[in-house]
Every structure is written in C-alpha cells, then in structure tokens.
C-alpha cells in the first residue's frame, strides 16, 4: 500500500507563513532594519530636498522612496531561511506543493511591509508631512496596501529568481527597481493629490492600475512559481 500523503496548497501556505512570522518575531531582525533604513532615507530626503515639510508630489515621493528601499532589504532576505541548511531541498521532499512556498513568501512580505508602515506612516506625518495626516488616512491606507501587495508579489518572484545567485544582494535591487516603477508611478499619482493641503478626492484609476498590476504579477507568479523552487 502506498497512499501518498499530500498537503493542500492553503495549508502549506499557512504553515510556511506561520513559520516565517514566528522566526521574525523571535529574532526581530528584519523589521527593525527595514524601519531604520526607511526612517534614515526619509531624513536624507528632508535634507536633500531642503524642505522642512512636504506636500503633494514631494510628500508622495518622500513616503514611497523610503518604502521601496526598505522593501529591497526584505526581498533580499526573503528566502534566506530556506537557503540555509538546504531548506529548499527539504521543502521539496515534503508533500507540499512547490508553488505554495512562493505564495507564503509573498504574504509574509506583505505582512512585514504592513507592520513597517504602522510605524513609518505616523512618523512621516509627524516629521515631514505638511497637511494633516488623519483626514487622508483611509485613502493612504488603501493605496499603501495595494502597493504592499504589488511589491511583495514582484519581490517574491525576484527573490525566487535570485535563489542560488552568487551576488544576490546585487541582483535583487537592480531587478526590483525597474519592475517596481509602474507600481510607484501609480502610487505616486494616487497619493500626490491626496497629500495636497486642500486634499482632493482619490482618483480611482490609479488604485485600479495598482490592483491590475498586482493581479498580473500574481498570475505570472502562479505560472512560474513552481519552477522557482525546483532543486
């Protein structure tokens, strides 16, 4: 009798996600580093732009650039746990579907980015933003959530591509930045009018563009995901 035990995709995703989040909570390694880099970049921008407060286009850029830089740190380390001690080979020996690993990594990175923003957005409101933050918070949260999903999806794919690369820390940023440009354009266009002093209503086509880009990346990821984590 050879009844092969299999694990369903959602169960495997949850198991890997739980493992990754538990590891991060225990080591508390990645999130502080991402937070410090994002805050540092924000301070650099304050002096580079020579502005005590920012609004509109500058405000959107001053929030998005630190977020992108911080996400690069997270993406570079996305498969770090699996690459130690032949973790990917061990995962492939398990009855879990190969593509579930990528899906778990995308959700994990999204959670880390959301956690980062819980600190970063209030800091941005206090330190740099000219107009009031609270009245525009719902629009800001919506756009940032869509951006997180997009960055996490493309980050998962890029980190998967770079598994086994000798100079991963060089390859990941140069791959992520061009791929992130459409997402950053959409987020910037969505946020700039919202972060003006007399905040305008959110132009819905830009969040829609972000959502479409995230969906396209997710579809591409679902096609190529199983090939990324082969032995």
């Amino acid at each position, binding site marked *: 009798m050879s009844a092969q035990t299999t694990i369903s995709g959602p169960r495997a995703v949850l198991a890997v996600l739980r493992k990754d989040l538990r590891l991060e909570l225990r080591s508390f390694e990645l999130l502080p580093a991402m937070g410090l880099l994002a805050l540092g970049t924000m301070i650099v921008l304050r002096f580079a732009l020579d502005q005590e407060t920012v609004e509109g286009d500058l405000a959107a850029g001053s929030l998005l650039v630190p977020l992108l830089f911080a996400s690069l740190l997270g993406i570079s380390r996305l498969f770090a746990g699996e690459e130690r001690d032949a973790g990917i080979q061990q995962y492939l020996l398990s009855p879990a579907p190969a593509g579930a690993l990528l899906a778990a990594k995308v959700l994990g990175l999204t959670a880390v980015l959301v956690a980062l923003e819980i600190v970063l957005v209030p800091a941005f409101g206090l330190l740099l933003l000219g107009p009031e933050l609270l009245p525009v918070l719902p629009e800001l949260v919506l756009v940032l959530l869509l951006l997180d999903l997009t960055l996490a999806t493309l980050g998962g*794919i890029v980190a998967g591509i770079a598994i086994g690369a000798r100079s991963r820390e060089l390859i990941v940023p140069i791959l992520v930045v061009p791929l992130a440009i459409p997402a950053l354009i959409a987020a910037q266009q969505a946020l700039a009018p919202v972060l003006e002093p007399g905040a305008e209503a959110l132009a819905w086509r830009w969040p829609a563009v972000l959502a479409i880009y995230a969906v396209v990346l997710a579809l591409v990821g679902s096609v190529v995901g199983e090939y990324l984590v082969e032995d």
Partner: protein
Amino acid sequence: MTVRGLRPLSILSVVLVAVGFAMAFLYAPLDTDQGFRQKIFYLHVPIGIVALIGFVIGGIHGLRYLRGGGSEADLRSYVHIHQSQILAVSVLITGAIWGKTAWGAWWRWDEPFLVSFLIVFLLYCTYQPLRLSIDDPRRQARAASVFAVVAGAFVPINFAVVRMADAYLHPRTLSNAADGSMPTPVLVTFLTCLVAISVLYATLVRYEVLSKSTTFRLRALERRAGGDDLIPRRSAVPQA
C-alpha cells in the same frame, strides 16, 4: 540549426532595408510640420516595434523552456533578448536625435515612449548579470527563463502606465496609421520599413542562434579531445 536558408534570408534583408531607406528618402513626401527630421521615424518606430516584440518572443521561448522545451528554447530566449537589447539602444539613440532636432533637448521626461523604453532597457540590462551570477547551467537557464517571462509580461504594462501618467508630446505614428490620417505614400513606406527591420531582425536572430550553438558544439568537442582538464567557462550564454 543549419545554415540552410540563411543566405537567401540575408540577401532579402539587405534588399528590403535598401528599398525601405530608398523609399523613405525618395518616395515618401516631406512632412509639412516636421520637414526632413520626420524621416528618422521610418527607422525609429519600426526598430521600437520589433524590439518590443522581440522581448515578448524572448518571454515566450522562456516559457517554452520552463514547460520542458529544452536548452534550445533557452538559447532562443537569450538570443531574442540580446538582439532586442541592441535594437532598444538604437531606439533610445534615434529618439534622442529626433528630440534634439524637434525640442532642442536630447531627453524629455514627459515623453512616455522614450521613458518607457528607458525603463524596459534598464530592466533587460540585468538579464546578462543575472545569468552570469548563477554557475549551474540548469539553474541559470531556469532563472533566466522566469525572468524572460516576467519581463515579457512587464513590457506592455509599463508602456500603458507610463503613457497614462504623461501628456503626449511624441507624434502618434500608429494612431495616425490606424485612423487613416496618414498619407498613402507615408503609410506604404512605413510598412515597408517595418517589414525590412523585421526580416533583418529574424536574420540576425538566426545568425546568432547558429553561431552560439556552433561555438557550444566546438567547445564540447574540445573538452572531449582535451579530457576532463578543460572545464566549461563561466558564461552568461546558454550552454545549449
């Protein structure tokens, strides 16, 4: 891959390119607004279209490799991307030349097509470094194929988003052709140039595929003749 058919294809490429350029300079009328500088569009636009299609074909071959297409699919994906990179440089250069004559500036950030091309070019510039950073040929081919698929899907999205974000400055060549406002001699010349550049591209792809696969076979023979001392060199080129 054999040399059969390559000579007629090469002759056809040369003839078509010569005819296209002759038509651009002798048959197509001078544009009333732009004058002589508009002639560069008979080169710039077809090269741009063929480069973008080449990137997408590279992605299709990448997908073929992932679906078990073998090392030949990886080689074709590599060659299409490589040739399209060369065409993309030409698009950026010819676009900048046109910009200098039309706007007095080599570069304009509110020109969505040039900006899109720069982003696409920047992305594809990472293709060879990515391949070179992975030693294992199988793993290298797999990562490069996934890259080709993702980047191939990225090309149209990037163009759409950049175009949405910026006002139009660049003349809309294809829109003019589609709505019938392009004069017949201009349209015929443009289509001839498009066919000429497409055939030239197909010829160059065939040459490079043949050259790379011949080089690989030669190295394999050298290794067999030289024993195990000759190990394969680290390379971004597929070991097809």
